C-alpha cells in the first residue's frame, strides 16, 4: 500500500507535477495527511542517501584532501629549507639542515640570491662549482666556512649578517676553483666592497 503511494508520488514528480499538486490529488483520493507526509519524507530520505552514497564514490573524502594538503606542505617546506633551485642559470644546490642554529637555512638562501643579483659573475662560479652547502658549524667555526673538496662547502653563518654570508660563500667557492687562502680572503674582501654600498 505504502509502496504504491511512493511509486505514485515518484511518477507524478517525473511527469512534472509539484509537491502541493500531488498532495492535493492524494488528499482527494482519500489518503490521510500523515500517510502523505510520511511517504514524502521517505522519498526525500532515500534521495539524500542516494546522493550521499554517490558523492562519496565520486569525490574523495575530507581525509584524502587533508593528507594531500599535508604532503604538499611537507614537500614545500623541504624545498624551501633545503634546496636552492634556479633553473634559468642551471643552479641546483642542496643545503644540509643546520641542527645547531637555524633549521630553515633562510640566511644562506637569501645570501645566494643577493650574490645572484649583486655579483652575477661570482654567482655563475658558485653555481658551477658548488652543489652542496653544509650549514652546520664545521671546520670554519662560528661565522665561518670551509671547502670540503668536490662540490661541497660548509657555511656556518646562520646568525650572521647576510653580507658576511655572501663573503664566506665567495671565499669557499674561490677554494673550489683551486686558489689558496690569500687569494680567497681577497675575494671575500672584494665581494664585501661590491655588495655593501655606503
Amino acid at each position, binding site marked *: 500500500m505504502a509502496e504504491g503511494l511512493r511509486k505514485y508520488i515518484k511518477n507524478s514528480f517525473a511527469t512534472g507535477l509539484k509537491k502541493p499538486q500531488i498532495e492535493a490529488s492524494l488528499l482527494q483520493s482519500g489518503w490521510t495527511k500523515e500517510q502523505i507526509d510520511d511517504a514524502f519524507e521517505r522519498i526525500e530520505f532515500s534521495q539524500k542517501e542516494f546522493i550521499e552514497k554517490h558523492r562519496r564514490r565520486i569525490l574523495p573524502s575530507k581525509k584524502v584532501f587533508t593528507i594531500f594538503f599535508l604532503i604538499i606542505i611537507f614537500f614545500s617546506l623541504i624545498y624551501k629549507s633545503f634546496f636552492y633551485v634556479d633553473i634559468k642559470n642551471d643552479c641546483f644546490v642542496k643545503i644540509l639542515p643546520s641542527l645547531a642554529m637555524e633549521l630553515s637555512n633562510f640566511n644562506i638562501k*637569501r645570501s645566494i640570491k*643577493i650574490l645572484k*643579483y*649583486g655579483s652575477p659573475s661570482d654567482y655563475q662560479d658558485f653555481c658551477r662549482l658548488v652543489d652542496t652547502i653544509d650549514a652546520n658549524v664545521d671546520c670554519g667555526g662560528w661565522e665561518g666556512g670551509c671547502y670540503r673538496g668536490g662540490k661541497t662547502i660548509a657555511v656556518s653563518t646562520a646568525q650572521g*649578517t647576510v653580507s658576511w654570508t655572501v*663573503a664566506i660563500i665567495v671565499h669557499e667557492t674561490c677554494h673550489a676553483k683551486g686558489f689558496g687562502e690569500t687569494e680567497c680572503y681577497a675575494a*671575500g674582501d672584494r665581494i664585501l666592497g661590491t*655588495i*655593501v654600498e655606503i
Partner: protein
Amino acid sequence: MKFDILQKLKEILTKIKSKLRSYFVSFAAIVIFFAIFSFGVNFFSYFDPLTFCYIGIENDFLGGNQKTVKKAIVQLKRADIQSYKTLCTYVDTIVEEHCRASDPRVSGKEIGTYEPGCYIRGSKIINLIPTKEDDQFVINQRSITIRKYANFSKNFWENRQDHTPGINLRF
C-alpha cells in the same frame, strides 16, 4: 489582492534585512581579523594597511631599538611621500646591524662598521647601525639614512638590464 502585495513586500524586506545583517556580520569579522592581523604584523615589522606597505624589521634585541626604526619610517611618510613610496617599493627589510664593507684580515681596516647605514646590493635590504637611544635626533638620523639607502636600492633595481622591480627576495 492589496493584502497579498503587502505580505510579499514584507517578506522581501525581511529577507533583505536578514541578508544585510549577515553581510554586516561578515564585514565586521573581516575588519576585526584585519585589525588583529595588522597589530600582529606590526609587532615584528612595519605594516601600513592603507598603503599596503610592508617592511620587515630585524632588530638587534640587545643593542637596537625597533621603535625608532618605525618612527623614522612614519616621519619619512609625513615629510616626503615620494621617498616613502620608494621605500615601500624597493626595501623589504631593515636590519639593525653594523655594515661590513671589508674584511679587516685583508685590508687591515674596518670599512663601514660605524656608518649610519648601508644598502646591500642585489637585495632590498638596508642596514642601520644599532642604537638603543630613542630621542628625536636618532629618529631624524634614521629617517635620513633610510631615505638615502632606499634610493640606492631604487637605483640598483632600475638600472639593471632585466629590470624587475617587483622581484621577490623573500623566502
